[in-house]
């Protein structure tokens, strides 16, 4: 399937056409903050920020998701909308994050009885979804997707890749679902050879704007070797252990279950949790295995760069830079990784 083009003037029609079949999400501005919001027209979209303040993970893994409700007549699964979701304008880092989350919620966890664990709430939304990725022509100084085999024009996790080329969006299907939708939509026209050449040039321009990647080969093993070193104290000294990094992260996916009940009815809700908070590991006895800030910072770093890669073969970080931007004490994960690598190379 070939590349197609969408006139920017036609964006509104495009979104409306897509809305006929899908619930469409796109970056929008909510009180000064950009996040993915449901849209029905092109005017509601805000592409002014390269990286949205909040990641799009909440579309598929909401901050608070009702799993079931109960009353004296019984238990009922939560009401879900069965309209499939389409996301327009998802940056390559965010599209990749969904692939990472899908390994956890969607398919890859091996259960003892030879079944693979599948989270129905995630699958219901993600499997039928359509991701229109959005290449970055102007990566930010906080972007480091190229450290982890990503890049401003990376297409992992996308169904259709979209590139902003001035007056037009150039689109190219990446998956079968992408081919299907492109052939169905009416406001698209075929792209020319010049368009293809332009896209290649833009891609290489964007790549060249990225800072030199850090060598993260074998990072996991290197971190594991440092598990008991005092460098963790140094690293975590300034961390205040709030959850800003984990909640803004597109790949952090730890959750907690809460029951909300009153009288004869109630509901069970799955909410985002954060390994940064002491209560995350608080045991019923009152003992907390990760009582100190150092233990919690280590957990977050190890989960992203050691445990997850050990299980799934890829680092659980897309280099979107949100944690770098929101951290109230500027504990920059890039600096942290550089420190570890330097520490490791010195042979301690």
């Amino acid at each position: 399937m070939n590349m197609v083009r969408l006139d920017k003037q036609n964006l509104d029609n495009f979104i409306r056409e897509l809305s006929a079949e899908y619930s469409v999400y796109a970056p929008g501005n909510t009180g000064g903050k950009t996040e993915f919001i449901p849209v029905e027209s092109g005017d509601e979209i805000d592409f002014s920020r390269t990286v949205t303040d909040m990641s799009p993970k909440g579309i598929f893994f909401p901050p608070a998701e009702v799993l079931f409700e109960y009353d004296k007549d019984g238990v009922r699964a939560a009401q879900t909308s069965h309209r499939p979701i389409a996301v327009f304008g998802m940056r390559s880092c965010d599209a990749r994050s969904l692939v990472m989350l899908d390994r956890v919620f969607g398919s890859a966890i091996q259960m003892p009885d030879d079944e693979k664990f599948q989270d129905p709430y995630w699958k219901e939304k993600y499997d039928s979804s359509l991701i229109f990725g959005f290449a970055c022509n102007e990566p930010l100084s906080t972007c480091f997707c190229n450290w982890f085999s990503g890049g401003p024009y990376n297409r992992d996790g996308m169904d259709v890749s979209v590139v902003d080329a001035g007056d037009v969006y150039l689109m190219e299907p990446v998956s079968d679902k992408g081919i299907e939708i492109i052939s169905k939509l009416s406001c698209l026209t075929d792209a020319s050879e010049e368009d293809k050449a332009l896209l290649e040039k833009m891609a290489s321009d964007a790549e060249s704007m990225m800072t030199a990647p850090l060598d993260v080969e074998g990072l996991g093993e290197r971190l594991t070797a440092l598990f008991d070193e005092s460098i963790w104290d140094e690293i975590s000294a300034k961390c205040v252990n709030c959850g800003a990094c984990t909640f803004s992260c597109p790949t952090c996916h730890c959750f907690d279950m809460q029951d909300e009940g009153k009288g004869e009815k109630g509901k069970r809700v799955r909410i985002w949790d954060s390994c940064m908070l002491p209560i995350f590991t608080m045991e019923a006895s009152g003992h907390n295995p990760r009582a100190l800030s150092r233990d919690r910072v280590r957990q977050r770093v190890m989960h992203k760069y050691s445990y997850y890669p050990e299980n799934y073969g890829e680092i659980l970080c897309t280099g979107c830079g949100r944690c770098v931007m929101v951290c109230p004490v500027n504990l920059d994960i890039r600096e942290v990784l550089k420190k570890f690598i330097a520490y490791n190379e010195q042979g301690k």
Partner: protein
Amino acid sequence: MSEWQPRILAILCNWCSYAGADLAGVSRMQYPPNIRVVRVPCSGRVDPLFIMKSLQAGFDGVLVSGCHPGDCHYISGNYVARRKFAVLKPLLEFIGIEPNRVQFSWISAGEGERFATVVTKITEDVRKLGPSTRLVKKL
């Protein structure tokens, strides 16, 4: 019977206001039946969180009552409580909670009549405001 009736939580200190309520009762005084009483050892025991939780649970009004200043069974409990309430009340009004939803009073064990008056007043105040919605948690 379909007319809406306010539900008001009354948090009363054990030594004065609760006894005041008792006196109103044994003296057969009339006052609206809209309050539900919680007895606490002292108004100093009242954490502002109790008041917030009551509003969240759907009470239309909250009355907190303790001993008159100087009469506290624990010498100074109500003085400390007074500072808490002096800050809580303006803060609630500041965020946009109707001023009369949460009220405070001092009622001694001998003031059965005052108890009846206070309960009548808060009931009428809250009735005028209508059902509480602003901090009520909907399930």
